[in-house]
């Protein structure tokens, strides 16, 4: 932020806060895409938020906050690969991150539309299928524990999860088609 261009620092910071807030979900989705299977996306988002706040003076109002913040996120991931790997998290190589990042970036609007579609699709599922999804995404506990509780084999649940996610993807795709929205 150039003080001579922006005499009212308060207004600029307000705009910055607004941009940061609006992009939280998109940044989180981006981190999750670059660290598949890792549970620490929210921790990493918090780290990136702190960096963005510390670097806020470098953000020029009027330019793309998304491009800037995603770049900072990418660099943070790449710089901290070894630390993240030491926690057992799998993170893509720098070269791959650089090359596939553009494909994995989503706008806040797209994510909102996807979530609305997901809600509708979830409402069509049987309760026990929703319970299974909830267990998988809410608890993070091993599938075996849940299998014992509901007296089914872990292998069956794994296959059911796979089918459920396939069905949800197709359902979301259909919702987008019905609304005339093309998926990126």
């Amino acid at each position, binding site marked *: 932020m150039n003080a001579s261009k922006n005499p009212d*620092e308060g207004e600029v*910071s307000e705009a910055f*806060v607004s941009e*940061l*807030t609006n992009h*939280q*979900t998109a940044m*989180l*989705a981006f981190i*999750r*895409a670059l660290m*598949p*299977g*890792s*549970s620490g996306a929210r921790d990493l988002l918090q780290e990136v*938020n*702190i960096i963005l*706040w*510390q670097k806020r003076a470098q953000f020029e109002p009027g330019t793309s906050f998304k491009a800037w913040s995603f770049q900072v996120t990418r660099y943070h991931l790449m*710089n*901290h690969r*070894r*630390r993240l790997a*030491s926690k057992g998290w*799998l993170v*893509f*190589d720098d070269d*791959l991150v650089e090359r*596939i990042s553009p494909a*994995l970036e*989503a706008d806040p609007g*797209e*994510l*909102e539309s*996807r*979530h609305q579609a*997901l*809600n509708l699709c*979830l*409402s069509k*599922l049987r*309760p026990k299928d*929703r*319970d299974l*999804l*909830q*267990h*998988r*995404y*809410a608890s993070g*506990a091993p599938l075996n524990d849940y299998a014992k*509780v509901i007296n089914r084999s872990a292998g069956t649940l794994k296959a059911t999860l*796979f089918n459920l*996610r*396939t069905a*949800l*993807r197709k359902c*979301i795709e259909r919702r987008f088609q019905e609304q005339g929205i093309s*998926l*990126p």
Partner: protein
Amino acid sequence: MNLNDQQLVAAAFDGALDKTSFRRLQDRLLNEPALLALYREHAMLHHSLCEEFEGTQMIGRSVPSVARTPRWVPVLAACAVAVAAVFFGWQWLKSSRPAPVMAGCAFSADAIVKVDDRQALNGSGFAVGSRLSVERGWVRLNLPKQAVALVEAPASVVFEADHVLRFESGRGRLHCPESARGFTVKSGSLVAVDQGTDFGVVSRPGAADELHVFSGEVAVNAVTGTARAVLHAKEAAAVDSAGALQRMPAREEDFESVTPELRVLLEDRFDTGGPIADRQPVVGLSHWRLEKGSPELKGGHLEGTGFEAFYSLPMDGLTASRPVLLVTVETVESPSFHTEQWAGVSLYQEGYEHCFFGDCFGPEETWSLDMKRRLVPVPTEPRLTGPRTVTLRYDRRDGTIELHEGASAGSRPLVRKTIQSGLSFDQIRIGAADGATLAVVKISVRAIQEPPLR
């Protein structure tokens, strides 16, 4: 797209891939646009499902309504409030209007902190009535009247009034200058009233709480019963929930300093004190161990030929919140510093010498950096010769290692290379080979917090 690809991508998001399979997935994503498109679809669905379900009920509980407001709305709202709190806290710090009763917060680089159950950002304010939860790292609170509290994770602290902090759990250190006399710290079992001092408190629900005084005096009262005492420097007391007060010696080393960004791991000046064997440095918990030779203290420095002296560095010296090591050595003229042998300083971990700086083995007459897994030492550029003050900087986050002239590490290193990241170094050695001489006036080893990576 075949079924196997879908299973491969699904397994990635389930964390079910081993390193080899993950590597294969990476290679294919780079070259197969169709697989990348599938991966994106899975990534977006995975994110939406996480947002929908994360933090909701576990096994045996009811299922939330799927038609409710998206979960990210409250998340976003919480973020907005947290960020707005930072903004207004920052505004408050910038403005000249009278300060509300609020403490400024500074976090360690690795900190995870919540204020009233909302994620907080570094630099945000901490208002009276709020609860601060430090889940990782540390937080320094700049309290009214120049009092400072350093709260270490895991801890939960409530700012009860402008001069009262309640430690619900955890450990903290307080610095209360004369202006903050009367500052009060409460825990489940004790109430401590400062009388112009430095002290630490440990709050352990279900066990005795502790008060440790490092300087000055602190009055401590049991919450239950009538036990009370005035503790002086180096005194401590444990108070249990029944009100029993037991005195004991203070353990200052258990508490972070109020300036935890920097920790001096070793500092020694060789213009005074005893010989190097078993010598206690000016700052440092360990002592020097002479393993070879007989260097002497003379003319205000330590000088030796064919000697090796080791010092054990604390295991927790380099941490995630203090990831940068600075080793500064000040040398003076010696008869044979530059020789074909070596003379200088080495850093070790688990018995392995990871790097050396000084005059390296070989004919080059210059200060150099020897990264022990590389074949050739790297000379400084420009070449640095003779008695100098030189600082080695190592950043454990990315393994960057640099040599600088002077007592600090600026932006223009004389050598900049990379070694293994994540090292913590458990020993440092000063020494010289037979035929070479090292003359040292001062040595210091510091771990510092330095958030931005270069």
